[in-house]
């Protein structure tokens, strides 16, 4: 099946296996930040943005990106590095395996929600699992990131 889409800002046309999970397709395109952490659509590690919305690439079929814009961590390096800095500063990364998916969903949350409460943050990020930590340091980092963003916007 022939599809046309945008990957990290670059228009592409490709002949694809339509039912192939998007995770594997994107990895074959060199987007190695996109990973599988589970086989049950639960862990959030494979999160990418399709037309700005966070989706599980393990559950999205490649045919479904036809005509759409796909963003992976590779296309959001500056924002990802900034959020990664906050996570590192709070000691939130241990093995770090879940970080790409978490950062993608933090970016999606920041774009979708205005000034989210702690409950809203927890609810938005509930689909991102970390098996090293108890999420406390991540939440500290996210709150600090959001607070600094707000301060910068108001300045």
């Amino acid at each position: 099946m022939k599809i046309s889409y945008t990957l990290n800002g670059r228009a592409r046309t490709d002949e694809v296996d339509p039912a192939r999970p998007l995770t594997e397709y994107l990895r074959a395109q060199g987007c190695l930040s996109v990973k599988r952490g589970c086989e049950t659509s639960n862990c959030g590690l494979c999160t990418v943005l399709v037309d700005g919305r966070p989706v599980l690439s393990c559950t999205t079929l490649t045919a479904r990106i036809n005509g759409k814009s796909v963003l992976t961590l590779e296309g959001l390096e500056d924002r990802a590095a900034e959020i990664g800095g906050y996570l590192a500063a709070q000691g939130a990364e241990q093995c770090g395996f879940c970080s790409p998916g978490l950062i993608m969903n933090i970016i999606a949350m920041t774009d979708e929600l205005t000034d989210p409460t702690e409950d809203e943050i927890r609810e938005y990020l509930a689909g991102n699992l970390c098996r090293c930590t108890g999420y406390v340091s991540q939440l500290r980092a996210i709150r600090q990131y959001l607070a600094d963003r707000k301060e910068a916007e108001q300045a």
Partner: protein
Amino acid sequence: MFTTQQYVVASSLDEAYALNQKPRATVLGGCGWLKMGRRAIGTAIDLSALGLDRIEEFDDRFELGAMVTLRQIETSEALAAAFGPCLRESVRHIVGVQFRNCATIGGSIWGRFGFSDPLTCLTALGASVRLHHAGLVPLSEFIRMDYDRDLLVAVVLPKAGQRAVYLTHRATQTDFPVLAAAVCRRADGTYCAAVGARPQRAALVEDTEGLLAGGVTDASARAFADFAADRLTFSSNLRGSAEFRRHLCRVLVRRAAIQLEEGQA
């Protein structure tokens, strides 16, 4: 993961319906459940080019196209204005935002999964499904039907002044519910409850005895909850025993009725 021999992005409902008459054909929703199996699909039918991804409001009803995602339902201001927070409550605990941006209402309802949150809530609200061949079928009937080769086009939700409260008990955040319950008050003052994850498919219990007709009090809510719990069957699985579920039914139906009365719908 499933496999496919042929993948067709359908250009019309008639084409999708005709393709679906093949024995090994499968209509694709968001694939969240389908991907968990190893089904060998002959023809995979993709409905995403048919404009079924919209929530449409009419004078007397909403129509949720089969490809509307659970996240669209969760964030729809029009649905919240008409029915309060119950629909949002029925989907917001399902895995995570990313999953809910994938999962479709068509896939969720067609599957008639026992654990389904939206199936329970929509049944209480008196929704129907629009099937391409069979036409409009009340969800309370559709739940009991066997799987066939028809095509779910939309979920039709009447705007009839009904209000519902939806509650679940979960062992942990984002897990399937141990029990799901919705209590609905219709504009004519009658009540019903839908109870799902028993763990069988949701079932509807009408307040045929008029237990809530004189108003919702702690005593009448308790009586209706007992009425529902005594009429439904419950089974055991790894998430809970039949006895625990029957107890939860008494608790959640009572609480939902009281919250309905307190205006939390």
